[in-house]
């Protein structure tokens, strides 16, 4: 069930996007945040063989089955989270980066993130004035069960506040900002610890950037529609 081979022809010097038929799992081990259960991780491997050549490329990644939902609570104004249908009380740590000279070692990530887990935290918030963290950071958050609240590169203090007002329209090159945002999402999107993207710190990004980010990150309509038996649509793939 968890092994599948498909055949695809790719025209010369071209790119295409391909979606595998969905793989079915019955009661897989779920990934849970720190304190709620195990951080079950599966290894997903993709290998492409080319006729007449052999193995051409491969890719693999740890993957955790989890469903994260959140919404703003009308009564308190706070954001409430559920993981795999269960409400979770968020105990979070704020994070800028592990080293101001960007010597971002795996050992340091492992130690720092384990320390957050040992403190009984279940979330790290990556502040918009710092980095979008690296895959190695996310790997250890996956491993230790730390949810990640990841902000993009907007802060109220540098984009929109002060006297005179600082950069009210955000960065000069909005297309560049959005290109970087798309590329960063592609880099990090498969990590089970990735819980929430936020436009910036204490500030809503400029209108066009905010609208584009919301559009990029909206749930694909196919994932909102299920039939009366709870099955995905026929043409899901």
């Amino acid at each position, binding site marked *: 069930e*968890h*092994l599948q*081979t*498909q055949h*695809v022809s*790719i*025209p*010369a*010097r071209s790119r*295409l*996007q*391909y979606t*595998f038929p969905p*793989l*079915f*799992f019955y009661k897989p081990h779920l990934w849970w945040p720190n304190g709620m259960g195990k951080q079950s*991780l*599966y*290894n*997903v*491997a*993709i290998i*492409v063989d*080319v*006729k007449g050549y052999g*193995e*051409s*490329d491969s*890719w693999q*990644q740890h993957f955790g*089955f*989890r*469903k994260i939902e959140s919404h703003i609570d009308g009564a308190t104004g706070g954001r409430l989270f559920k993981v795999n249908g269960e409400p979770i009380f968020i105990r979070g740590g704020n994070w*800028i980066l592990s080293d*101001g*000279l*960007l*010597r971002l070692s795996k050992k340091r990530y492992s130690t720092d993130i384990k320390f957050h887990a040992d403190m009984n935290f279940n979330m790290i918030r990556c502040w*918009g*004035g*710092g980095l*979008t963290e690296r895959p190695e950071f996310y790997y250890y958050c996956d491993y230790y069960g730390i949810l990640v609240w990841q902000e993009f590169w907007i*802060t109220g*203090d*540098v984009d929109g506040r002060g006297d005179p007002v600082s*950069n009210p329209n*955000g*960065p*000069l*090159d909005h297309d*560049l900002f959005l*290109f*970087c945002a798309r*590329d960063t999402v592609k880099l990090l*999107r*498969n990590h089970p610890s990735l819980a929430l993207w936020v436009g910036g710190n204490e500030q809503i990004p400029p209108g066009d950037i905010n609208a584009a980010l919301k559009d990029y990150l909206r749930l*694909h309509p196919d994932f909102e529609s299920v039939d009366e038996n*709870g099955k*995905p649509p026929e043409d*899901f793939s």
Partner: protein
Amino acid sequence: AEIGKTPLDSGWLAARSTEVQFTGTQLTTTHPPTGPSSPWMEALVPGTVLATLVKNKVVPDPFYGLENEAIIDIADAGREYYTFWFFTTFQCDLSANQHCDLNFRGINYSAEVHLNGHRMVLPKGMFRRHSLNVTDILHPDRSNLLAVLVHPPDHPGKIPPQGGQGGDHEIGKDVATQYVEGWDWMAPIRDRNTGIWDEVSISVTGPVKVIDPHLVSSFFDNYKRVYLHTTIELENKSAWIAECSLNIQVTTEVEESICLV
């Protein structure tokens, strides 16, 4: 060459651009640096220019005492002062129908790449990956010479005497990390984190390359029925139609060294 990724994280040298008399073409053909002798020094890659200067004790460690005050700020020194060359060599002996990409996972803020005398420009932006197809310019059977000229952010800004949140806010005009002009918790970073700050690698593939797979799960019947949805991009670099067999496999380790497929 073996299919897969090889990080380029050792053997790097660096030098201030104003102290290097050769062009990128010369550095990667006739006049490569021979070792860590002035103006060249051992470099930290990934890392920032300041990390390399600290490593070589050219400047003190800014995070001890008030040592940051002893390091000249880019606003006073000028962008050229923190514009650095980085240089390394690597081997990659491709066989027929193999392809090689040179990958940068993060450069702050823009760069020129020179490889064996060929120049390529990396556009601005701290949070973007760059992937360059270098198949046709690699040297078989001998070292490839790689030099990268890294420019600081376009708007490094000035630090007001009273400090403050994000200095004079100029850094916010770029797509880069903003804490580097100083904050209520942090002194200004003198080079604004200029450098090759994330992984550099080469990746060798056959005719077809896998790009940015996307994994999504959907849940039904109270988490009993679960589907894994996988989308990938595939690039055929060859001049002929590639008939591909795509294999996806999901495993979990049930005991040490025993995997369930």
